[in-house]
């Protein structure tokens, strides 16, 4: 087990309140536990995916492999919002979105030697994120089986729900789809990836992704037509 300890105030840019040292624990698997204080300055997460020029991401990733500190920091700043968004739109992973984003970075760090220069970075990163999410889902399911609630839990902030009659909620739409189709729709429509990129990230063929997307659209059309019909009635 490897323990990392960082003096946060050494790295705080001007204007950021200095904080006490923060610690993270990374074990041999690279799984990472952090103590996440939520207060402090924030980085806005764009409501539409930030498609940083792919070439730029590839250069940053190559810099990461060559231990270029600036490239690492820039890559993290550019990709983290996308990762957070990827986890956030999955109902099962939403409450752990920030932790999962951090754990994904730890895995990216361990896997960085497997990135091949010239290949698209996003599918590579999202393939790791996808497995992080799956692992977390299984872990949470098993932990929850063993947990005993000893007290009433305080209410936590719920996901922002924008549910109106004419504008269905993303959760509601995704809940209608089987997991494999949901994953494809999230990557295509939320992360803004292409069919080929989704195929790479999900270790499947482009044809399979197209088929899943087509079925998802057919299902969503039925659902949305049903809603429209109900409203008209």
């Amino acid at each position, binding site marked *: 087990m490897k323990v990392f300890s960082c003096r*946060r105030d050494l790295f705080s840019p001007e204007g950021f309140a200095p904080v006490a040292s923060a610690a993270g624990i990374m074990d041999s698997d690279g799984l990472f536990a952090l103590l996440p204080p939520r207060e402090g300055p*924030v980085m806005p997460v764009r409501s539409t995916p930030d498609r940083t020029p792919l070439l730029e991401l590839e250069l940053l990733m190559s810099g990461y492999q060559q231990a270029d500190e600036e490239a690492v920091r820039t890559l993290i700043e550019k990709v983290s919002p996308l990762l957070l968004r990827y986890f956030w739109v999955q109902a099962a992973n939403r409450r752990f979105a920030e932790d999962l984003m951090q754990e994904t970075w730890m895995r990216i760090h361990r896997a960085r*030697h*497997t990135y091949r220069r010239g290949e698209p970075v996003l599918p590579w990163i999202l393939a*790791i994120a996808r497995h992080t999410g799956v*692992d977390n889902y299984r872990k949470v399911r098993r932990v929850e089986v063993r947990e005993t609630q000893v007290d009433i839990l305080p209410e936590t902030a719920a996901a*922002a729900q924008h549910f109106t009659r004419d504008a269905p909620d*993303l959760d509601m739409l995704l809940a209608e789809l089987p997991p494999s189709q949901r994953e494809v729709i999230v990557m295509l429509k939320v992360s803004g990836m292409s069919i080929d990129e989704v195929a*790479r990230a999900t270790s499947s063929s482009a044809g399979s992704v197209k088929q899943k997307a087509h079925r998802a659209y057919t299902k969503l059309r039925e659902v949305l037509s049903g809603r429209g019909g109900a409203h008209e009635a």
Partner: protein
Amino acid sequence: MKPEEVDRILAQAAHRAAPPDISRRVIERVENVLVSDLRPVRPLAPPWASGTAFLILFAAVAAAAAAALGLHGVAVLAGEQRALIFPSLLLAALLAAAACVRQMRPAAGASLETMALVVSALGFPALFWLLFRGYDTGNLVSEGVPCLIAGMSVAIPTGILAALVLRRGFVMDWSRAGLAAGTLAGLAGLAMLELHCPNLKAIHVIVWHVGVVVFSAALGLATGSAADRLRRRKAIRRAI
């Protein structure tokens, strides 16, 4: 409703489902942890190099084991049987090696391990059915078990060596990687048996020789799943 309308509704819903802003401190913490452990890494060898390593492993272990046990099988095979069996074995091993290579890197392409197993487990019985005769089940078990044991004795070390090569990459799903490595290892066992075993009865070759591939793949899958479970259990213990 047209697909464009579904697109529009999805885009609007995705737009509204924006996560909260990321804490600057979280980003900095990640940056600092990664930077504190930053050192140059040598990129993983290209897929063709890893694939060649798996193929060499397959061929070397099968040939060495067969040479040690005696090349009695290849001596009794007819020319056309040799010409069909060994290139087919090489093609199947190529597919299994590609499946292994794809497990070494995230986003390396569509998974091939199931295809490699299905092609091997169905293709070789079909090939042997065409090439060999003899479906007498007398002594089927007594003649077959030594072949199965010999084949697995080759497959298990091959699988272990393949796992060592796999570990040079970043395997995310050891169950799939185990299936791929198990299939490749089973093919090494099958190749060794084709070189060594002089029993050309179709039923013997189909059940016991091809059985090595199936057993080995199942063992690889089980071992990989166990490794995955162990990793998750560790994570759960930490969480509890």
